[in-house]
């Protein structure tokens, strides 16, 4: 396997507001995010050579971005890799530049989840569903299975377990209160989280990210061309991807799947660390955006990403290791918890936070002297993940 290190740079990024954007269509959000990225990069639509768009439910062909953005006759690809669709678009855009085909590319991720009227995710194309396998499987339910097993395996009482998860929710809401584009910008108390109504016990309302609309965009270019756009460009240091090999969404399980350690994320992270030259992630990663569709997801990902020893995540939560002031701040912008999870947008929103942090433009969320930022997206449910890890770094 090769390495992407230092071949591609990010020169502009933009975000729409994330939230229940009743007054914004997909087109509106795509325009909002993309034009903010154009402005950040100091370029316009005529400068773009290729585009990649990540979405799962909200657009079925490349026209879902070419039409609103009026991109005429460009090579545009729609990609999907479940919740890792955003990072997937960024990943394949990076390869298209690194191979020398294009000098630059626009990357857009978006999702419009609130039009369907369900208080949950819509179905993918109905005809691709199975009538019975996977009947009753839900996102919160599947991660609740991981939580139950995690507490059981490590001998954590239900009270202690819920308290640990609640600390993660409190941290992320606190961080989100410092970001003007986050869906939720208010703090929550530990008690409110612990006592919230159950969604899929042991997960309660505040253990779950909200259902949200949003869009994010990035402008990528060849690393050697980046300085002609700006001094504080951000380099892509590593990209890893690993896709699971069984599918509980469709009722299929393997006996050897460990619900409490996520191999796909472990493999993807190691690929990215290897390319970026990271030997000790806990020491060398300055900040990380970690997939936190549920609080338990973030907890197990500390371990699966190699930030905390396996089974010891709780100790680090109690010690505040991953808070803004801690040794390795995680989800400095509030994560999926505060931003919600418009699926195609999330990975690019994470890249944006890494980008701003590395540029020193993260305001009240700023970590000190960051050198490497990590973005981690994770599609699916235990046993069937698309684990995607991107590492970004400041220029030398």
């Amino acid at each position: 396997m090769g390495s992407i290190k230092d071949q591609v740079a990010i020169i502009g990024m933009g975000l729409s507001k994330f939230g229940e954007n009743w007054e914004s269509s997909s087109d509106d959000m795509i325009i909002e995010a993309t034009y903010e990225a154009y402005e950040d990069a100091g370029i316009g639509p005529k400068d773009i050579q290729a585009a990649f768009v990540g979405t799962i439910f909200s657009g079925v062909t490349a026209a879902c971005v070419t039409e609103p953005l009026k991109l005429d006759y460009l090579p545009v690809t729609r990609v999907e890799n479940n919740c890792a669709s955003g990072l997937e678009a960024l990943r394949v855009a990076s390869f298209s530049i690194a191979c020398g085909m294009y000098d630059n590319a626009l990357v857009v991720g978006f999702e419009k989840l609130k039009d369907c009227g369900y208080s949950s995710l819509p179905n993918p194309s109905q005809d691709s569903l199975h009538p019975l396998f996977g009947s009753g499987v839900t996102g919160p339910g599947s991660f609740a299975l991981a939580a139950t097993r995690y507490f059981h395996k490590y001998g954590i009482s239900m009270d202690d377990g819920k308290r640990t998860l609640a600390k993660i929710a409190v941290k992320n809401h606190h961080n989100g209160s410092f970001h003007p584009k986050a869906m939720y910008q208010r703090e929550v108390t530990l008690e409110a989280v612990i006592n919230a109504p159950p969604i899929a016990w042991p997960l309660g309302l505040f253990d779950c990210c909200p259902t949200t609309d949003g869009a994010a965009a990035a402008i990528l270019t060849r690393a050697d061309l980046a300085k002609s756009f700006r001094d504080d460009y951000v380099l892509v240091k590593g990209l890893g991807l690993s896709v699971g090999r069984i599918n509980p969404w469709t009722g299929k399980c393997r006996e050897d799947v460990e619900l409490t350690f996520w191999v796909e994320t472990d493999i993807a992270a190691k690929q990215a660390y290897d390319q970026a030259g990271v030997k000790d992630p806990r020491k060398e990663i300055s900040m990380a955006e970690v997939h936190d569709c549920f609080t338990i997801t973030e907890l197990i990902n500390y371990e699966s990403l190699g930030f905390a020893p396996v089974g010891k995540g709780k100790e680090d939560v109690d010690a505040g290791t991953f808070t803004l002031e801690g040794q390795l701040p995680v989800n400095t912008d509030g994560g999926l918890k505060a931003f919600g999870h418009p699926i195609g947008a999330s990975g690019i929103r994470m890249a944006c936070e890494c980008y701003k942090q590395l540029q020193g433009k993260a305001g009240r969320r700023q970590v000190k002297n960051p050198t490497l930022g990590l973005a981690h997206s994770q599609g699916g449910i235990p046993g069937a993940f698309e684990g995607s890890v991107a590492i970004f770094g400041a220029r030398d």
Partner: protein
Amino acid sequence: MVGITAYGAYVPFYRLSKEAIAKAWDGFAPPGEKAVANFDEDSITMAVEAAIDCIGGLDRGIIDALFFASTTAPYKEKQAAALAAFALDLRRDIVTQDYANSLRAGTAAMRSAIDAVKAGSAGRVLVTASDCRLGAPQSTLEQNLGDGAAALMIGDSGVAVSIEGSYSIANEFIDLWRLENDRFVRSWEERFIMTQGYEKVLPEAVLGAMKKYDLTPKDFAKVIFYAPDARSHTRMAARLGFDPRTQLQDPLFDVMGNTGAAFPLMMLVAALEEAKPGDRLLLASYGDGSDVLVLQATEEIAKVKPRRGMKGHLASKSMLRSYEKYVLFRRLMPVEPARRPEAYSAAPTIWRDAKSLLALNGSKCKSCSRVQYPVARICPYCGSKDEFDYARLSDKKGKIVSFNEDFVATTIDPPNMMTQVDFDGGGRIQCAMTDRVVEDVKVDMPVEMTLRRIHDGRDILNYTWKPRPIR
């Protein structure tokens, strides 16, 4: 000698107290409770349960026919017996028949099974009788009717209960009925249907049978007969000349209720659980006439044991918290639809996957011996392709790997408790638990599998298996 070679029964896990029903209507509460099928049960699922109770460890390959009897078969046109036979993993070259429309359907199936074995057209016939009848809200029938099933294996070797004789009367009479679109059982005035129907016809049949075989009440250890309720049961016993203290099989009105076509066979199973070699039993059904059977327990009776039988099932129960839960289970009231995508199905898909979904078979790899569910063409462990044997998992026990209480997933009885279960011998399945007491569910809890009706998407019935705590 032809007769019963194995027997079994099934009583649903849930019970509703008669008091809860009376409270809903400000009415009078007779004593006891009735058995209520779970929201995911129907006459097919209960018949399969009773069949498993009956079959036990017997080789299913010896079964030559399945006769399914019910007045509440879920499809009005489509055979229940074929579906049940597939779920039970029976051979393909068997005779499947549905017996319907009458409270006598169970004994009718029994009679035909006996005739088939006597005629030599089948060596072993599995008879199931199951019913899930509804009395209209606020009616006496609502208090009296219960849900349940029984199964009998009829054969000519290893006979535990021989069939000594039979006698039937056909009687055209309007007492209870349902038309095509009726949910609730209708009845004519009780004074008419009892005095001109039940109280005339049942004695005519029973006395006619005894006369035919030159027998008197004293010749019988037990008499097992249909009655609409407890009071008429007691009166009929006296009318027929049997001793209420020693000869009556308990009609179980206060613990189960009147289970329709299944009723005579369920009471028979209860009687067989106590029967001794040489005991002569009289069985009488009622409905559009009567079927009377004279039976005698043989020396083999002690060897035949159902998995749980009537005793075991009656003892394993959970009371429904309220009448409203019953209303929900039976969908008696329209409720606000969940804000969720509609249930979906496709006939080709569930047909292709039937071995996994309906018969709960996994695949056992011929190369590495690992078991995978559902059936997998490529072994997920060693990668070998199309080299497997089918492995029946429906009769395997398992342990809970993890569980949740999901209030988002659509279910009639929230929370939906999704579980992952590891089977003894290999294979992991993910599916919602049923018949569970929420607070009692734990990681590592042992479970067994039961066939249930999951949803009616696209207006076809979609069945598969769920784990439940071992009853």
